[in-house]
């Protein structure tokens, strides 16, 4: 150990405030170094003197003064602990409180679990019924579409017009203006292969023959 390090540790050697291993190292160094030894002895001497002075140089209460002080203090009230916290110190109360809390927690968790299961079943049912409804709807739509396709009086509605219809839902006046007029008459032409005779029949919306 070097002198610099030793002198840093010297003040703590006096009261054995360092680990045993370090104390041993410093002590070994002191044995071989005159300057560090002198320094150590100076520390020791000063500390001893200070302690001696401290022992001699004491102040104390006068008895009369002390009695007055004690009377004044003991006339005060000792502060009670918070009334809320007092029952918490009793082990029986604590145990019962814990039991109650745990049981409440279990009930709460159990109820939640049951509710979730019920909700799950209901949801499944709801999903099934929704699917059924959708199926019915789609089948109906298909039927309507087939019928519409077959309907010769079906108005010719282009994609653009469909958009307009969708936008102007509930505004019949606008729709009428923008849409093409509905087909009111249909014609049927019959041509003879042999003679080349052409017969044209006109029908109205209700398939009634018109001259």
């Amino acid at each position, binding site marked *: 150990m070097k002198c610099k390090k030793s002198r840093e540790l010297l003040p703590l050697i006096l009261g054995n*405030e360092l680990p045993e291993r370090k104390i041993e190292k410093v002590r070994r160094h002191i044995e071989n170094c005159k300057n560090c030894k002198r320094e150590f002895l100076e520390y020791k*001497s000063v500390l001893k003197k*200070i302690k001696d002075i401290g022992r001699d140089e004491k102040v104390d209460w006068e008895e009369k003064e*002390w009695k007055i002080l004690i009377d*004044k*203090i*003991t006339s*005060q009230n000792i502060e*009670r602990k918070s009334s809320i916290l007092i029952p918490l110190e009793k082990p029986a109360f604590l145990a019962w409180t814990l039991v109650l809390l745990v049981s409440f927690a279990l009930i709460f968790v159990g109820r939640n679990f049951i509710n979730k299961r019920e909700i799950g079943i209901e949801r499944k049912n709801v999903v099934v019924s929704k699917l059924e409804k959708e199926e019915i709807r789609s089948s109906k739509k298909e039927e309507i579409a087939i019928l519409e396709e077959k309907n010769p009086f079906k108005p010719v509605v282009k994609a653009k017009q469909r958009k307009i219809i969708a936008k102007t839902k509930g505004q019949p006046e606008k729709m009428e203006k923008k849409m093409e007029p509905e087909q009111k008459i249909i014609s049927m032409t019959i041509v003879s292969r042999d003679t080349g005779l052409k017969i044209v029949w006109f029908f109205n919306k209700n398939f009634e023959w018109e001259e």
Partner: protein
Amino acid sequence: MNENEKELVEMILNGNTEAFERLVIPYRESILNLAYRITGNVEDAKEICQETFLRAFKYLRKFDTRKSFKNWIFKITMNVAKAYVNESNKGKEILNRTYVNKVIKDNHSPAELKSILMECLDSLSIMERKIFLLRDMEGLSVKETAEILGCSSIAVRVHLSSARKKIKKRFQEKFPQWMGYHEV
């Protein structure tokens, strides 16, 4: 905490307030001296002491009887002293005060009325002073000192080392004639 102190605490809590004097009397001198060495003035020290005993009585129910009563009351003293020193810059006033409480005997002229101990303590910061007083003057362990002051054992060692160095330096400067030592 010894059994006697435990009994006294129970007696006080059961309404026998007279037992309080018996409980604190072993510490009345050490607490007063501790406060005196921190403040450097007997009157201030008595105020701190009074507040300490008052708090100890008032909050006795909060005291954990498994722990040391001495450490508890020392902790209260340190907290009261800290508040007292911090209050309205009294710290500076206290640290710069000239102590004329004790006349040092032989070899000292009237100009050197200031106590050697107080003169040396003057060179320390408040924290160093507290640690030095608790460890070297009251003989508490490093761990107890740390517990009372609410700091780590390492912090106690660091401040203690610094305090001893400063005290030695001040002692050598001010009282070289007292510097004799015997080789061991």
